[in-house]
């Protein structure tokens, strides 16, 4: 594959491409047709299902955010805060510290 970059960057680009292909294949219309209407998580479709079969049911969480759109909001909030934290430290590691190291050299 000639990606016009040095070998190292080319290799990384291949990894990104594989990720993108996997992600795209997941949302393709072909697979969507196979999939059921609902998209339950494995926590429900496997863990809770087999636990129920064996006579053990999940209890409601102590702080129950699984009500209407509340869970969506909490997930969004958690993703936003987590994303900012990850981005903040990524910047420190990849740019600020890398610059400091270059200057020291």
């Amino acid at each position, binding site marked *: 594959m000639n990606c016009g970059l040095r070998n190292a960057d080319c290799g990384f680009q291949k990894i990104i491409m594989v*990720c993108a292909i996997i992600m795209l294949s997941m949302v393709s219309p072909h697979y969507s047709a196979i999939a059921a209407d609902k998209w*339950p998580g494995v926590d429900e479709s496997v*863990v809770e299902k*087999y636990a129920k079969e*064996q006579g053990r049911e999940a209890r409601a969480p102590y702080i129950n*955010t699984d009500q209407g759109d509340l869970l969506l909001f909490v997930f969004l909030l958690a*993703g936003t805060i987590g994303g900012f*934290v990850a981005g903040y430290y990524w910047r420190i590691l990849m740019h600020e*510290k890398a610059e400091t*190291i270059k200057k020291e050299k």
Partner: protein
Amino acid sequence: MHISEGILPVSWAALWFLVALPFVAFGLYKLKKLSAVDLSFKPLVGLMAAVVFIISCMPIPVPTAGTCSHPCGTGISGILLGPAISVLIAAVALLIQALFLSHGGLSTWGANIVSMGIVGSFAGYFTFRVLRSLKVSMAVAGFMAGLFADWATYLATSAELASGIKGDSPFLPLFTKILIAFIPTQLPLGILEGAMTAGMVVLLYRKRPDLLVKMGVIRKADAV
């Protein structure tokens, strides 16, 4: 892999807490020790904590199975920070998820730390170390570490769940049944997690090889 609140009997839930406790305590000790020696360690811990938290609660649809599941992230944190600190990070992520995201539970926190934190981190760490010692490339070693960390986590969850809910029935058939039920979702997700892990390791290797040397992930001679 989050085992929901109240699914495990008290005795099993307590056992998993006892198993997890020394690992979490050792993680705290290592974090304190390493942070005191090297200040640049903290940003990496902060980054990995956020990454593990986000991706272990991020539902990804798997159309081949018609279900959603999430990667674990403990493969990459195990490689970069070592399994002890990775366990600690997973414990914090799982606690927040149990408290506020209706993911997992407080009574099953110990069991979830064992599967995602301990088993996932150690599987990722050892896979990477063994492959690197066999001179396997950084990308392939990272990929396999992410893959095995993910699959090992779900293997452990199957064992925890089967042992906790089996009642009078035999363990092995139930364990196999649960494990097989995870396969359609986790097989492709494990591959995705492997690709994500490889991507992060390779990127750090290109951009900050000094950091990987400092963390003991690679030798100075291997830095590009």
